[in-house]
C-alpha cells in the first residue's frame, strides 16, 4: 500500500526563504520575460510569440552564434580536460607547497571578468592588431583562465571524498595509477563532471562580461548573444526582442539539463525522512 507522506512544518519553514528568493528572483522574472516576448518588437511590430524565432533573423545573431560555437568547440572541452587533469594530478601525489599551489591555481578563477580583461590586454601589449579572428581567442582565453580555477577546487574536493577502501581494492586488483584515475576516480565523480559541463556550456552560450569589457577594441560590440539581447533591451528599448533572444539561449541549456537529469540518478534518493 502506498504510504502518504505529509510535509512537516519545520521542512516547509526551512525551505520558505529559498522558495521566496526563487519566486522573486527566478520564477516571476521568468514568467514576466515569457509574457514580455508577445509584446510588439522592432522585428515583429504586431507582437506575438513568433518573435522567438524571428529574432534569429537579426544580422548579428548568426555571427554571435558562430562565436558561441567556437567557444563550445574549443574552450569548453579544453576546460573540462584541464580541470580534470589538474584535479587528478593534485590528488595523485603530495607536493611540497601544495597549499600555495592550489591558491595560485585558483587565483584566475577569483578575479572578475574586468580584472582578467585588464591583465590580458596589458600583458599582450599595445602592439597587437586585434581582428575578428584573434579576438575570439582572447575572449576564450579569458573565459578559460577565469573558469578553470574554481572548478578545480570543486572537482579536487569531490576526488578527495572517494572512499579509501574503493581505491585500495582497485590497486589490489592490479590497477595502475592511470587506470585508477580513468576507470575508478572519474566514473565516481561523473555527476559532478556532468554538472560542470552543463554550467560551462551555459557560460559559453551566455558570455557577456569579457566581450563587453573589450569593446574599446571596437570589435566586440554585439559579439555574443547576450550582448545582442542586452542591446535590444537596454539600448533600443525593445524588451520583447531582448527577452526573446534570451529565451532562445535558454533552450539548449534546458535540453542539456533534461538529458543530464534523465541519465543520472539526480532525483533519486530513497526514502524521505
Amino acid at each position: 500500500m502506498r504510504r502518504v507522506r505529509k510535509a512537516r512544518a519545520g521542512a516547509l519553514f526551512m525551505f520558505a526563504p529559498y522558495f521566496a528568493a526563487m519566486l522573486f528572483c527566478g520564477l516571476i522574472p521568468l514568467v514576466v520575460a515569457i509574457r514580455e516576448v508577445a509584446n510588439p518588437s522592432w522585428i515583429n511590430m504586431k507582437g506575438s510569440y513568433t518573435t522567438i524565432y524571428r529574432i534569429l533573423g537579426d544580422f548579428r545573431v548568426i555571427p554571435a552564434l558562430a562565436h558561441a560555437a567556437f567557444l563550445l568547440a574549443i574552450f569548453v572541452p579544453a576546460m573540462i580536460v584541464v580541470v580534470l587533469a589538474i584535479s587528478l594530478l593534485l590528488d595523485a601525489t603530495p607536493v611540497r607547497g601544495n597549499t600555495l599551489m592550489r591558491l595560485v591555481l585558483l587565483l584566475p578563477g577569483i578575479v572578475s571578468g574586468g580584472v582578467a580583461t585588464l591583465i590580458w590586454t596589458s600583458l599582450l601589449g599595445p602592439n597587437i592588431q586585434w581582428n575578428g579572428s584573434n579576438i575570439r581567442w582572447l575572449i576564450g582565453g579569458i573565459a578559460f583562465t577565469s573558469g578553470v580555477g574554481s572548478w578545480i577546487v570543486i572537482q579536487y574536493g569531490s576526488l578527495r571524498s572517494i572512499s579509501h577502501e574503493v581505491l585500495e581494492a582497485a590497486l589490489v586488483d592490479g590497477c595502475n595509477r592511470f587506470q585508477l584515475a580513468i576507470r575508478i576516480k572519474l566514473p565516481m565523480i561523473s555527476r559532478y563532471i556532468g554538472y560542470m559541463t552543463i554550467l560551462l556550456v551555459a557560460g559559453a552560450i551566455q558570455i557577456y562580461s569579457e566581450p563587453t569589457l573589450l569593446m574599446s577594441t571596437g570589435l566586440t560590440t554585439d559579439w555574443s548573444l547576450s550582448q545582442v539581447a542586452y542591446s535590444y533591451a537596454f539600448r533600443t528599448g525593445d524588451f520583447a526582442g531582448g527577452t526573446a533572444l534570451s529565451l532562445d539561449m535558454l533552450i539548449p541549456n534546458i535540453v542539456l539539463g533534461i538529458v543530464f537529469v534523465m541519465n543520472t540518478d539526480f532525483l533519486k534518493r530513497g526514502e524521505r525522512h
Partner: protein
Amino acid sequence: MSHPAKGKSALLIKLTLWLITFTVVLPFLWLLKASVMDFANSQAGVLAWVRDSVVFTLAALIFSVLSSITAGFVMAILYIPFRKTMIVLTLITMLIPATAMAMPLYVLVDHIHLNDTILGLVIASSYYPFGAFLSYLYFSSAMPGDLVGMGRIDGLGDWGLFYHLGIPLSKSLWSIVTFFSFINLWNSYQLPKVLLNAPEHSTLPMGLELLYGRGTATVGILMLIPAVLLYLLSQRSIERGIFSGAVTG
C-alpha cells in the same frame, strides 16, 4: 589524496604542477607591480565603491548562503510537496541567461520602489541556486538514510536533524558555498549595471569599467584581496573534501 604516486611518476607530476603554477602566477605578479605604480592615479571614489561593494556583498551573502544550504538539506533529506519539481526548477533557473532576468528584475525592483538602492540590488541577488544544488548533491551523498532514521528515533525533528546532524557534517560545504557565493557577488557586474543608475552608487566591478586605464590595477588588487583572504581562511575545510560526509573515507 589516499594512495600517493611514487618514484619517477611522482616527480613528473610535481614538475608539471609547478610549471602550471608558475605560468599562472606571472600575470598576478604583473598586476601587483602595476597596482603600486597606479596607486596615485586611483581616485577618491574608490573608497565609496569599496563601501557599497562590501555592504551589498555581505548582506546578500548572509541570506543566500543560509537559504541555499537549508534548501539543499530539505530537498535531499526531508519531505516537501513537489520536491522533484523544486530540484528541476533550481537547475533551470540556474541556467537562465542573466540578460533574460535583468529586465524583469529591474521592473520588479522598481515596482517595490527600491531601484537605484543597494537594498534593491541585495534582494535581486539573494537567490543562489548554485549553492542550493551543490548542497543538495552534498546531503544526498554524504548523509546516509540510516543516520537520519536514527536521528528520528532519537526524537529529532526537522530542525533538530539539520542542527545536530546536517550542520556538523557539512562544515566544508558551508565553506565552499560561502566562498563561491562571495566570489559571485563580489565580482557581480551585469545586475549592478542594470539596477544601479545613480552615480553615488557603484560597486567595484562597475568602478573598474569607469576607471579603465586610470588606476585600474589598484582596483583589481582591491578586488582580489578579500577573495584570497576568504579562501585562505576556509581552505582547510574546503580541502577536507567537499563531498566527504558521514560515510566516505
